[in-house]
């Protein structure tokens, strides 16, 4: 198998951090906040590495778009088993449409046979980049994947849908977006973290790609959601049922 798998990864506020909205309402505080690879992207890296280990793919290439600091998620991807990495350098924040334009350029340059990525990033929660990218490339898509099998030039994808699972068979090349149950990502071992430092990491200036990265959305404001008030503790199930009947009038 000669297939090259491209794995786009995103550097986001770590999922354990409780984010705070910036006082000026322009966004959320990211200064001094722990950043990590988007958890869904870790699953995508793991799946790509497994495909290579099974012999279904030849090479796994991780790519991210961001400032110099975004290199750390590429090193993590390589410590997990990606062979090399590409940083598309920019200081701007890109929307999914713009990200898809950049990834399309990289996928074409790399002649990728499969793009395996997280279904959504836990910062903007858009759940859109994979689908937009597939459309722009004219490739089929297997979104919200919980199982993936490559055979005979096709990829079979079990997809999480409302109420169950659906299986689709796609021609390659294709775009897959990873859902939670696809796999359990491995921890990068210390020797592999050391090895990853020596793997190739290429930096490309975003302007050199010549793609449209303009934003179509203007952020008018970012606000805290209204807080719920903490309620009362009750002492027994009987008291709870009584309150639900007479006070909350919900049963």
């Amino acid at each position, binding site marked *: 198998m000669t297939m090259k798998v491209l794995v786009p990864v995103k550097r986001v506020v770590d999922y354990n951090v409780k984010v705070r909205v910036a006082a000026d309402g322009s966004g959320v505080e990211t200064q001094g906040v722990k950043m990590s690879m988007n958890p869904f992207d870790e699953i995508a890296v793991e799946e790509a590495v497994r495909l290579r280990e099974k012999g279904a793919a030849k090479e796994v290439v991780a790519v991210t778009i961001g400032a110099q600091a975004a290199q750390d998620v590429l090193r993590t991807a390589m410590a997990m088993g990606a062979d090399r990495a590409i940083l598309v350098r920019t200081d701007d924040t890109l929307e999914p449409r713009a990200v898809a334009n950049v990834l399309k350029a990289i996928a074409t340059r790399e002649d990728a046979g499969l793009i395996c990525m997280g279904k959504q990033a836990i910062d903007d929660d858009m759940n859109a980049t994979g689908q937009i990218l597939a*459309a722009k490339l004219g490739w089929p898509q297997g*979104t919200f994947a919980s199982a993936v099998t490559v055979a005979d030039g096709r990829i079979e994808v079990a997809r999480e849908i*409302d109420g*169950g699972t*659906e299986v689709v068979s796609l021609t390659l090349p294709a775009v897959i977006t990873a859902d939670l149950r696809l796999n359990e990502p491995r921890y990068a071992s210390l020797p592999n973290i050391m090895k990853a430092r020596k793997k190739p990491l290429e930096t490309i200036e975003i302007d050199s790609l010549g793609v449209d990265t303009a934003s179509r959305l203007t*952020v008018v404001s970012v*606000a805290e959601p209204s807080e*719920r008030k903490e309620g009362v503790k009750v002492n027994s199930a009987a008291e709870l049922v009584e*309150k639900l009947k007479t006070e909350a009038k*919900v049963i």
Partner: protein
Amino acid sequence: MTALVLVEVENGAVRQASRSAVAAASRFGAVDAIVFGDGAEAAAALPGVTRVLSVPALVNDLAEPAADLLAARAKDYSHIVAAASATGKNILPRLAGLLDVQPIPDVVEIKDADTFVRPIYAGNALATVRSSDSIKVLTIRGSNFDPIAAEGGSATVETIEAPASEKSVFVKVELSASDRPELESARVVISGGKGMKDAANFKLLEPIADKLNAAIGASRAAVDSGFAPNEMQVGQTGKIVAPELYIAVGLSGAIQHLAGMKDSRVIVAINTDPEAPIFKVADYGVVGDLFEVLPELEKAL
């Protein structure tokens, strides 16, 4: 301005989330509906829908032909709208890619025809965004818009052909058999967390769910531990629910879970740990062992 709404029909009835999407879309002006597979009649009965585009041949909601078809019709519309369901989230961003517009997912509030509010960071912040695209592609979070009625309308129906799909082929679907209401439309939801300890204990939720006609949900931790299937997951990465009553059993209330249920009208938490974050959002809390509280609750109902 006219909006086109992707309407999902299941067992002859329009899904509640799609009725919410029609309600949201009617803010923009006239509403047309598009239905893949059978179900044009149910969509034509929705109040406020002028015209139904029926694509009976497209039975499996495959994103590739569906997005192609929507793209071919898009120029007639100012807004293309769907519920933020698995189907909506699969098809609409692909459509946006074909149209080269930036989709706006999970809309919880419409400010005007160009300006929308959507949650980011698992609902820990609400972003108000204004779109400069000529066609807006939106998914609507059903729990934030009251659904329109299922009957009362009489739209015209136009049947259209489905484009071929060679790159993507439907193989099979496995739906979990359940007589319970859908998570997203149930009046009452009872969810179990890691405190349930194993899959067999999830059965303890059933008699209570039976008495309250409730849907059963699970936290991501419970799903990850194999206690419950993923389609039961409530949270940022699962289903977003806002029932009249939400009962959280043996779940701590991780940020990502709260994102999926904190808009419920009344929240009840049952947990042994009085410091569990779930109590911060609960209207009524019971500090205790769920294995003792659940049978008592069943008896008291």
